[in-house]
């Protein structure tokens, strides 16, 4: 599996994401600068990392979403390419129109930085296939604007099409412990073809026992398996 990570001015999870992919794939991750108008040939997945692209000016992810590389990423997704957006990357994917809804300031107005529990709502995607349905994983969040909101008809469509990948939950899997006030405890959503995932939590930050857990790394390993030639 060939992965690329996009780098914007203000990205700060790009190296972590690169390491997570390299550990799973056994090959180097390509880093792509935001001013490039084209993606490298032969990519399987493009990842948009967390951070504070363009200083979160105007709205989180708004400026990055209009950068040259994002036009290439929208085309790539349109051709069936896999795209992963984490934290600020999720905000960028929403601002670019690849995923619906909006991410607003956290309901309590505070930056939240701690481990959360996520319920796996859908294992029928390359991103979540490594996890058991209804299972609970632990990964960190670190954001100020993760409060997912969408019109009722969008939320209904996400539910009807089984496109909610993760929801915030308590350690025992019951609903609650939502760190940002998001509608329906939503932590991550999928595109209609389930090849684009946006999520606020950071799986790349729990990819080694020395960091306190490996729940995050399973996503990257699952991606590699799901894309392996049959």
């Amino acid at each position, binding site marked *: 599996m060939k992965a690329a990570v996009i780098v914007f001015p203000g990205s700060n999870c790009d190296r972590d994401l690169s390491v997570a992919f390299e550990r799973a794939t056994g090959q180097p991750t390509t880093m792509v600068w935001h001013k490039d108008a084209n993606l490298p040939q032969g990519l399987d997945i493009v990842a948009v990392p967390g951070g504070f692209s363009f200083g979160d000016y105007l709205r989180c992810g708004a400026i990055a979403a209009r950068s040259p590389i994002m036009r290439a990423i929208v085309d790539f997704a349109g051709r069936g390419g896999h795209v992963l957006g984490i934290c600020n990357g999720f905000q960028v994917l929403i601002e670019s129109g690849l995923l619906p809804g909006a991410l607003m300031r956290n309901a*309590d*107005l505070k930056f939240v930085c701690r481990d959360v529990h996520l319920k796996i709502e859908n294992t029928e995607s390359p991103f979540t296939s490594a996890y058991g349905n209804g299972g609970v994983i632990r990964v960190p969040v670190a954001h100020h604007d993760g409060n997912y909101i969408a*019109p009722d008809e969008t939320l209904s469509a996400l539910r009807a099409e089984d496109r909610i990948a993760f929801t915030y939950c308590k350690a025992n899997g019951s609903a609650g412990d939502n760190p940002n006030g998001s509608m329906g405890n939503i932590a991550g959503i999928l595109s209609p073809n389930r090849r684009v995932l946006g999520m606020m939590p950071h799986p790349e930050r729990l990819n080694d026992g020395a960091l306190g857990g490996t729940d995050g790394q399973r996503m990257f390993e699952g991606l590699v398996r799901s894309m392996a030639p049959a």
Partner: protein
Amino acid sequence: MKARVFVTLKNGVLDPQGAAIAHALGTMGFEGVEGVRQGKVIELDLAETDAVKAEATAREMCEKLLANTVIENYRVEIA
């Protein structure tokens, strides 16, 4: 020609920052504040001299970048 763009949250979209401002005003002794909605003002200095065209351009800017029309409304004033 100057254009002033007002971006505000749509009705029904929770505004936690507005709620925090309302709370602070209450604690400062300002009574009777029944609601606060906050937003942003963007001032554009445009080379265009035709007010109709300037407004159309500013509105296009709102649709494509300045406002997130999922959650925000915008209003353009030409001066």
